Structure formats: C-alpha cells, structure tokens
C-alpha cells in the first residue's frame, strides 16, 4: 500500500467514528511497520535517474572522452589526406579510436579511485556503461568523419559499404578485447592490450600493401563474416555489463 493510500485510509477511518476494531488495528499496525522498514532500508532521498547520471558523467568525463577522440580524428584526417589509396588504410586507423577510449575507461584504476567509486550507487558498472555510451557516440561521429574524408579524397562513393566494414571490424575486435580484459579483471594485461591495439594498426596497414586482394570487392563476404563474429563478441560484452547493471552488481577492475 502506498503512503498516500494509507493516509486516505487512516483519514476515512478516523471520520467513521471512534470505534476501534482490533483485527483492523493489527492489520494497520503491520502495514505501518512494513512501510517503516522499507523506509529504513532505502536512503529516503531522491536519487538521479540513469540519464541524469549520464549527463553528470558527461560533465566530468566528457572533455577527456571527446577531447581524445577529437585529437585522434585530427591526426587520422591528416594521414588520410597524405596517403594514396586511403580506403585500404581505414582499418589501420579505427583501432586508434578504441585506444583513445582506454584512458576514460581506466582512469579510476590509474588514480586508485576504483574502490571508492565501486562503493557508490552507480558503482563501476553504471559508470562503465555511461562512459561507453559517450565514447560510442564520439566514435560514431569520428568514424563518420573519417569515411567522409576518405570519400572526399577519393572523389567517389564507390565501395562505401565495404569501407564501413573496414572501419568497424578492427574497431569491434579492439573494443571486444578491451572489455573482455576489464571483465576478467586482468589489470596487468591492459598495457599489453594497448600495445596490441597499436600493433594491429601497423598490421592492418601492412596488409593493405601486402594483401590487397582482401580489400577487393570479392572479399566482401569475408569482411561481413568477420563483422558478424566480432559484433557477436562485442554485444556479448555489452550484454554482460547491462546484466550486471540490472542486477546492481559490480563490474570490472576494482581497487
């Protein structure tokens, strides 16, 4: 029974007369006790919704997240302007956007704030989710700009679908690996992960020169297959975070 309903009920009971029915009294006493217990368990104070929390995270972390993405975007755009056959090099650039997400995602570990942040209503789970939403939005904008830049340099929109795949597949590989490491609490492997992301940029760049056939229209099926596989891994990691968040459980590297 809600407080307002109980109040109305008590008021109507008082208006009805002074006769006390003992069985009803016990029932009301039990209901009052239940409400008191509920109020005791909750802080009784107003708390922000997830969207308000997201706006707070944007206020505190937005500059770091969007600033790093903008910096990477600037460097990538300069490179695209300088390289011949830029479309083949799109996969070499997109892991950098995943790499630029790392400082924001791992800031609390770097500054030893993980433990303190974990014992809050938001905990590491909601925080990670909020940062991923902001980083995802920034990544989306940046990758769109990169593709537009490539199209501008090529002066042609042929193979735009393939270029989207070239951009997304390496990004999903890196993000899935990063989230998996955080999920498994492998703090010491984070630097290895960062190095691997940088290495993958070089590997994709080399593949553009050494294996041009994988960038031909006939290899589109392979890219679609890779996209489906790594989307699956990425969605599984995101699904895990969402599940932990729904259950109010902690996530990732703490303390």
């Amino acid at each position, binding site marked *: 029974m809600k407080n307002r309903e109980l109040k109305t009920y008590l008021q109507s009971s008082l208006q009805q007369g002074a006769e006390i029915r003992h069985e009803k009294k016990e029932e009301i006493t039990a209901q009052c006790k239940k409400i008191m217990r509920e109020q005791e*368990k909750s802080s009784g104070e107003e*708390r922000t919704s997830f969207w308000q929390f997201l706006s707070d995270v944007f206020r505190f972390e937005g500059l770091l997240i969007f600033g790093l993405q903008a910096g990477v975007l600037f460097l990538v755009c300069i490179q695209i302007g300088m390289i011949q056959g830029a479309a083949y090099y799109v996969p070499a650039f997109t892991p950098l956007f995943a790499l630029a997400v790392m400082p924001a995602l791992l800031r609390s570990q770097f500054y030893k704030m993980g433990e303190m*942040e974990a014992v809050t209503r938001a905990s590491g789970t909601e925080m990670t989710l909020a940062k991923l939403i902001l980083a995802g939005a920034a990544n989306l904008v940046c990758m769109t700009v990169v593709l537009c830049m490539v199209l501008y340099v090529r002066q042609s929109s042929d193979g735009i679908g393939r270029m989207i795949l070239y951009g997304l597949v390496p990004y999903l590989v890196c993000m899935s690996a990063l989230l998996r490491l955080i999920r498994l609490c492998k703090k010491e492997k984070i630097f290895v992960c960062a190095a691997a992301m940088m290495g993958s940029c070089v590997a994709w760049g080399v593949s553009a020169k050494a294996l041009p056939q994988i960038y031909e229209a006939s290899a589109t099926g392979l890219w679609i297959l890779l996209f489906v596989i790594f989307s699956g891994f990425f969605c599984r990691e995101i699904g895990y975070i969402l599940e932990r968040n729904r259950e109010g459980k902690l996530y990732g590297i703490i303390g």
Partner: protein
Amino acid sequence: MELSVDRLTKQYGRKLAVDCVSTVLKPGVYGLLGENGAGKTTLMRMICAILESTSGEVFLDGREVTSLGADYRDLLGYLPQDFGYYPNYTAQEFLLYMAALKGIPRSMARKRTKELLEVVGLNDAAAKKLKTFSGGMKQRVGIAQALLNQPKILILDEPTAGLDPKERVRFRNLISDYAAGRIVILSTHIVSDIEAIADEVLLMKKGKLVLQGTVSGLTKQAEGKVWELAVSPAEAKIWQEKAAVANLRHEGEQVVLRILSDSKPAEEAVSCEAALEDLYLYSMHG
C-alpha cells in the same frame, strides 16, 4: 537496522585473511582494532560487498547484501585505507563528482558539498586542486565524500591516519554527532580514538575476531593484569625481552615499566588501572 556478518571467510591461496568472522552490528560506533595484517581491511571490504568472500555472508536486516545491489550501496559510506584522487579536481569538484556517482541530484550535491567542506574544515581550500593538498587535507576530503549520501552504514578504514591532533578531535566529534541511528565501523591503530568514540570494540588477530565488547567491559578484562615496575635501565632491557611491556618512562635514574601479565611479575611490581590499550597489547602478545 541490523548488519549480520555470518561466518565470513576470505582465503588468499593458503593464507586465511579473515577466518570465520561472525558478529551482529546494530546502530552505534564500532572500533575495529588489530595489528597490520589482522584482516581488518579485508573484513571491511567484504562488508562493503566489493570483495567476494570465500565463504560466509553479510546480511542487512536478514537480506544478503549482494542481492540488495545498488540499494545497499546507497546506504553505504566508505573511506578506503589507501585511496587515490583525481589530482586536477578541486576539493569541491571532487565531492561533486562523488555525489554524482552516489546519485545525488545536483542542487542537493552543491548544498551538501558546501556543508561538508565546512564540517571538515576545508571551506577555504574548496577551490584548490587536490594535488596541492597535504596528506591530512586529502584524508579530510575522503571523510567528506564518505558522508555525502548521509549513509546509514559508514565504514572508515584508518580515518585518522595523517590527521593532526586538532583534526582528530574534530573527526571524533563529527562521528559522535553523526552516529545516532547509524552503524559506524572504523578501524584504526590509535586506541585512544576508539576509546573516545566507540560504543563497542572488535579486536581482530590473525583473521579471527578474538574479542568484542564495550570499552569499559573489555577494559575490565585487563584489570589485575597491568603492573608498574621501577627498575634500572639495564634491567629494563631484560624485562622487555621476557615480558609484555606496554610502556616505559624514565623517572630519574630509574625506568618505570608498564607490564602486562596474568600474575604479579615481581615482588616490587604495583598493580595499576587498566586501559583499552593494555587489553589490546595483552591480546596481541598472548
């Protein structure tokens, strides 16, 4: 409100950090005493539900705390022993950031941040960056963040570490005022802090909860076991090796030893009033 710790155990490899600790905590201030490595921090982290226990559970009013999730964390205020900070945040920004994580609406967060900075004596330094703060000032910011959500369960790991005597007194008063109707657990090596504010003392040794009781109740246990003995400096060295010496002070040519012993350690020894520190040292020595 009742926080029950039921046979809580944490094992790291072969080492038992916390060994089957059970206790029931009701509103009041609980002082957690124990030497380094006794398992105080591990126990506190498990009560905060940020460290998974090997076995055993923590219940709040009969409900397992991990199943309460965010609702449980909403009731918690926690100051870790060794905490970091974002160096480029000002004290005010840091508290506003923590308030955001605790889900406190902005207007309320601003009001409470201002109040708490005043309470911990940092209102003049509110706009200064944390990287410019001394250890004691950072500790006070840490205490303030733990109080932001007006927690019903406040867990403070070594809160007085780095505080000067004046600040320690301020902290004691703050906790005494705050504790009404709430569960406050604090660990410290400074026995006088516990004597001053704790309603109950929990004494841990090698992961086990060896003693629990009120300060006066526990002090009584040490009565008749504290002795003072005046000896020469050369004898003092021998006594320090063969007995539990809680304190020594020089009085002229002689050294007065405070000895903890079940029986009279020497004919000249005089029985004296026991303090909580004596019991603490006696338990650690035994």
